[in-house]
């Protein structure tokens, strides 16, 4: 590269896979051309580009944690303007692998809430599945109208030191973040206009159209022109930006639970200024615990009384179906490769991370002995909560987790800490690029015609030097993800 190299001095970490650079000063073969373009643009006032990107996001209201206090403080999801690259061939392979995994998880859910073959023959332990916090007995025997349970999935992938993609966890309930994928793209197109035009990057803006098509495709039988709505907890919810984004880009009205009611005929209606109108498909962005107070929380003022009844009767489609949490439980995760073999008769295409189940005596003993090396996670938490990063933990944190594991072993699993791959990321204080660890959450939509994968997905980046935690609640940010065309 030339002397005006914006990446001059960038040094990948010795023990991690760098997404862009094979070694200092040498971009990976598939990215040489794009790295040169970005480098040329970056050399001139990168700090300015970063500030411009942040200003755009704030002005457009691409924010979270709105109204955390009375003055309505808002924050943008921290954004790093240098995109993460994925080569065409690599993405093609990932796409096939993700579809395989989603097909198996979908079949697993139908089986668990149906005939339970996989439990009956012991391939997956019955107690483990039926004892999962998010297993819903109310769903047993219900075949959702439209035939799909995992309409929208987000599969968290990481890359180890050898460059091998591994699934870290599955999100099959209400995976979030896709709006940032689209907004991040708008920003990089403005900030890196020239590079973007020449780089030949796969489009992401098809997502809302695909989502709207998917929602229509899973409407109840016999509804020719379905009415779809997006259900949000409300404008004070931290993910409200995304909910409104999904509503306005798909053309579906954005409703709150109080806008909906279930009539005497077990059909769902929305209150409009022209009176009640029937609703056919609900893309719900509220936890299932708050969906229907008649079923889940009798004391709750939230939710739509009777909604589960309407769903079980096949009068309305819920996206995603209730009960999916049984398949993304972190203690069920180790069995996904077995599910793929069981239902599809195929070898799993995606690697996993070695997982110790604390409800197994042998695993538990190992975990308790190696807390300082392992990452411990609560099986039913997300967002980086309920987690112990062993190598960075204090003795008292470890003692506290050891106690919790002994008290409630089913609730915990542990994994070795994977050396997550890194991407060059702007370090404002250093005034240059530094390696920061990333993961990738691709989004998979499944309608009547099977799965479709959004090219790329959300790249989350641990902005704190040395950190392995990419969650926005823990100092993480995001990057645009460029899947290069072949």
């Amino acid at each position, binding site marked *: 590269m030339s002397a005006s190299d914006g990446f001059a001095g960038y040094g990948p970490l010795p023990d991690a896979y760098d997404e862009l650079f094979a070694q200092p000063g040498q971009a990976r073969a598939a990215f040489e051309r794009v790295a040169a373009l970005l480098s040329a643009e970056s050399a001139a006032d990168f700090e300015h580009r970063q500030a411009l990107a942040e200003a755009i996001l*704030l*002005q*457009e*209201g691409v924010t979270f944690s*709105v109204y955390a206090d009375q*003055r*309505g403080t808002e924050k943008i999801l921290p954004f790093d303007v240098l995109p993460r690259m994925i080569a065409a061939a690599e993405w093609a392979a990932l796409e096939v692998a993700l579809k395989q995994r989603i097909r198996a998880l979908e079949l697993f859910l139908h089986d668990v809430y149906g005939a339970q073959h996989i439990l009956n023959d012991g391939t997956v332990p019955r107690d483990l599945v039926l004892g999962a916090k998010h297993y819903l007995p109310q769903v047993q025997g219900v075949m959702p109208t439209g035939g799909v349970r995992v309409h929208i999935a987000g599969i968290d992938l990481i890359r180890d030191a050898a460059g091998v993609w591994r699934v870290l966890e599955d999100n099959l309930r209400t995976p979030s973040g896709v709006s940032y994928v689209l907004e991040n793209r708008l920003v990089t197109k403005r900030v890196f206009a020239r590079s973007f035009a020449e780089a030949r990057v796969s489009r992401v803006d098809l997502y809302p159209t695909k989502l709207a098509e998917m929602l229509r495709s899973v409407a109840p039988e016999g509804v020719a*022109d*379905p*009415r779809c*709505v*997006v259900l949000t907890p409300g*404008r004070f919810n931290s993910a*409200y*930006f995304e909910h*409104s*984004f999904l*509503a*306005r880009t798909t053309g579906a*009205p*954005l*409703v*709150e639970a*109080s*806008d909906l*009611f279930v009539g005497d005929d077990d059909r769902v*209606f*929305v*209150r*409009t*200024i*022209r*009176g*009640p*109108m029937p609703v056919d498909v609900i893309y719900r962005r509220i936890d299932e615990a708050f969906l229907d107070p008649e079923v889940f929380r009798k004391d709750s003022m939230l939710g739509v009384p009777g909604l589960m009844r309407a769903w079980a009767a096949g009068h309305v489609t819920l996206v995603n179906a209730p009960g999916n949490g049984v398949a993304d439980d972190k203690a069920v995760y180790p069995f996904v490769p077995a599910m793929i073999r069981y239902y599809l008769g195929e070898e799993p295409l995606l690697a996993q991370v070695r997982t110790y189940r604390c409800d197994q005596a042998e695993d538990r003993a190992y975990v308790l002995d190696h807390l300082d090396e392992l990452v411990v996670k609560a099986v039913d938490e997300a967002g980086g909560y309920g987690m112990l990063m062993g190598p960075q933990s204090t003795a008292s944190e470890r003692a506290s987790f050891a106690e919790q594991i002994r008290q409630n072993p089913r609730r915990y699993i542990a994994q070795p800490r994977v050396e997550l791959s890194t991407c060059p990321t702007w370090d404002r204080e250093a005034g240059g690029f530094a390696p920061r660890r990333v993961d990738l959450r691709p989004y998979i939509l499944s309608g009547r015609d099977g799965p479709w994968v959004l090219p790329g997905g959300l790249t989350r980046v641990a902005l704190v030097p040395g950190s392995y935690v990419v969650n926005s609640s823990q100092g993480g940010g995001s990057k645009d993800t460029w899947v290069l065309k072949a």
Partner: protein
Amino acid sequence: MTTPMIARIADHLFWLGRYVERADATARLLNVTRTLGLDADGPEADVWRPIIIATGEEDPYTARHPGDVDGEEVERYLTWDEASPVSLVRTVRAARENAWAVRSTTSLEVWQAINELHLWLDGPDGRRMFDRSRHEFYRRIQRFAQLLFGLTQSTMLHDQALDLVWLGVLLERAGQVARAIDVHHHALMGQADQAVDAMIWLAVLRVCSGYEPFARRRPGQATGPNVAEFLLLEKDFPRSIRFAVSEAHAALARLCPPGTPAGQRSVARLLTLRGWIDALDPAAAQRDLHAILTHVVDETAALGSLLWDDLFSGRTGA
């Protein structure tokens, strides 16, 4: 399938319109009164007390600032005071909260404009401009409001959402103009000084952007009664009470056509108000000005709550 407006969203759209119009009206009132204060020979309180009365804030303001009314204090109070529900900073924040709630229903441009106004007013730049260039400060708020009104027309679908925003704008406008006239009408009772009289009525016209339109309709006739009649009854002036009420009725009638279950009581009530204004005799209007303006203020307020019961609560027809 297109869906009629969700009732709750309809309420937010209506209030979005109301708050933007309110911010505009407050900024106009403060800016014009400031200029008027500069020209006035009498005590400053004579100019500013009516403003505090017009905003309905007389009691809380006096409690906070006893003694003579001071212009700078009134401006700060009506611009920045977090305790005052009508302060500009709170009005703009309320407008933006409603815009956030209807983010999926308006347009990107409408959201961006209101968000930009809020970020500016709530941040250091707004304070700085207020301290350095007061006129520019108010003017900026007025221009943002006008930008927003233009953007609703030029970037939103011309469907129910637009009618709901404008129903809010127009009902708020009718009430604000009525208050602006009434407060000066009060202040002038018993004043014999013709020069002061004319000056104040010209100021009222300026508050309503009506100075030049009035001059074209009634050249050289800027008396109190003529100005009042113009702002009350001129059918071609977009900030007259008659215009605002007529257009508000037209919007509501489109939203709730005959035969739809919700909103019919509101339509009937607004139609009655419209008919009553249309039937006003200009001479009688000048004589009973205060009673007429009070009726307009009361009716626009009553319509606000009736619309909730009748339309926005979503209970009618359910």
